[in-house]
């Protein structure tokens, strides 16, 4: 690698570390907020788990349903965390007034977005693992064959796609300061409905099922459930892994392109500025 390119890459990576560093500072300073959100997620997850536990054991395999639902709830909480950190990236900066300083810095937008996504993934995984251990204090799960290594691998591969889709939604507050975040929640809600978070996608109306085919969450959930409930080895999970890789390869460049178009629009129309 030529010296100039190496220096540029080094500068970009230092910039990326700045994004991760900043978000870590923010989480630390707002730790009570994080604690409140954690308790809220815990309450939601437990509610879903106890609904399953209340089913008639003579008619249903209660343990299996409980595990299927808790995996859905945990995966959804993780996915929500990744999307929310990405979509709120612009909005936070607008509220605090730092948006102009960040966007005028010589940090490339891919590094800016990937740095935000990387932090979201690390924080999301740590938070989900803690949530899993806390839930196990309330409910006993019998998972003798669970393949946690494969689970983390699927989550890591799926996270690439999640970051790509998160980038597409992160552009919304940039081009629409007032409505952008809310529109992002709509996109998140669509994923919730079509990805089989709490049910199999077979139950969806036929016209909705094609959306589940392009949603990375569909494959992530199916793969994680197979790994945890049946202890499926990586070799038998390939059918869910390769679509995640393909979606990831498409989603990241597409997310960057969409964000670049949105940023250009914001610069053209003077929307890259603080509010309040």
């Amino acid at each position, binding site marked *: 690698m030529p010296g100039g390119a190496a220096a540029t890459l*080094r*500068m970009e990576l*230092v*910039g990326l*570390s*700045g*994004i991760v*560093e*900043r978000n870590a*500072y*923010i989480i630390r*300073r*707002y730790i009570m907020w994080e604690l409140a959100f954690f308790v809220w997620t815990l309450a939601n997850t437990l509610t879903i788990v106890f609904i399953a536990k209340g089913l008639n054991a003579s008619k249903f395999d209660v343990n299996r349903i409980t595990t299927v639902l808790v995996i859905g709830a945990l995966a959804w909480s993780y996915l929500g965390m990744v999307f929310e950190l990405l979509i709120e990236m612009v909005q936070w900066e607008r509220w*605090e*007034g*730092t948006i*102009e*300083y*960040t*966007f*005028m*810095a*010589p*940090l*490339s937008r891919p590094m800016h977005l990937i740095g935000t996504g990387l932090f979201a993934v690390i924080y999301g995984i740590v938070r989900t693992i803690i949530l899993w251990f806390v839930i196990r204090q309330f409910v006993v799960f019998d998972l003798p064959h669970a393949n946690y290594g494969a689970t983390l691998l699927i989550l890591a591969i799926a996270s690439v796609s999640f970051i790509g889709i998160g980038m597409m939604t992160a552009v919304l507050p940039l081009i629409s300061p007032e409505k952008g975040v809310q529109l992002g929640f709509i996109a998140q809600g669509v994923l919730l409905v079509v990805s089989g978070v709490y049910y199999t996608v077979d139950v969806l109306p036929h016209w909705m099922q094609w959306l589940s085919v392009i949603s990375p969450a569909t494959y992530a959930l199916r793969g994680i459930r197979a790994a945890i409930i049946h202890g499926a080895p990586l070799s038998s999970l390939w059918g869910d892994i390769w679509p995640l890789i393909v979606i990831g390869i498409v989603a990241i460049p597409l997310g960057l392109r969409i964000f670049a178009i949105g940023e*250009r629009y914001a*610069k*053209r*129309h*003077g929307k*890259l*500025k*603080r509010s309040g």
Partner: protein
Amino acid sequence: MTLLQSDPFSSVPAVDVHGLRKTFRRKQGTGLRARKKPVAALNGLDLRIERGECVAILGQNGSGKSTLVRLLSTLLLHDGGTAHVFGHDVFKSPREVQRLVNRVSVEASFFKRLSTIENLSYASRFYGLTHATTKETIPEVLRKVGFPMDRANESMEDLSRGMQQKVALARALLTSPVLLLLDEPTTGLDPRSKLEVQDFIREVRQIHDATILLCTHDLDEAEALAERVGILDKGHLIALAPADELKASYGVDTLEEAFFAATGKTFTDEDEEGNE
């Protein structure tokens, strides 16, 4: 500590702007009669600032001062004309320009719950400065701007406006900008803080060889700091000369009178520049 060590810019002007135009669409009227109409913020602006020079631009709110600063900061796209910073096209090579420019605006924009050190630390990373570098340079620069180091770990929200503005200056200085854009940097400061900030601006010029574009409402400040003073009105630069020449050309004794003679307005009857 300056990016000009190898002096690659000695023969090019720091800022070279020709026929720069920027129009925003501003909402006029209410309800069903509301329409967006084009409003010219900059209307064919020509401006040349030599390396090492300090130029002050005077103008009412809405005259186009902030638009000029935001265009040079790469936060806006133009509608016509050209703008170069040390020979780099602001719109075609924004990354090169971003490495050379920093800015201090009227609002000290920070993550308010983060400390001074945290805010400066992550912001420096965006300019490629590593932790090893900034653990020494941040305290050094804070001392230079007269910031009490025993308060460096307090939340920014607990600091006075004057102290926050000193931190804003420190943030700009940390990145060794060769062009410093100051957008009303002393507005709202108490007299003592104002003088301290002005002294620091002089020091930045002398020691760091920085070129300064100062947009201000403070006529005394403009006269005290700048070699040349420009008057911007409705997006036109209608005068640009040393303060004494400007006063002499209008046959008046003060800059305020010169401003009135040039524009037919005083500094007090202002429009809001909110809808850019």
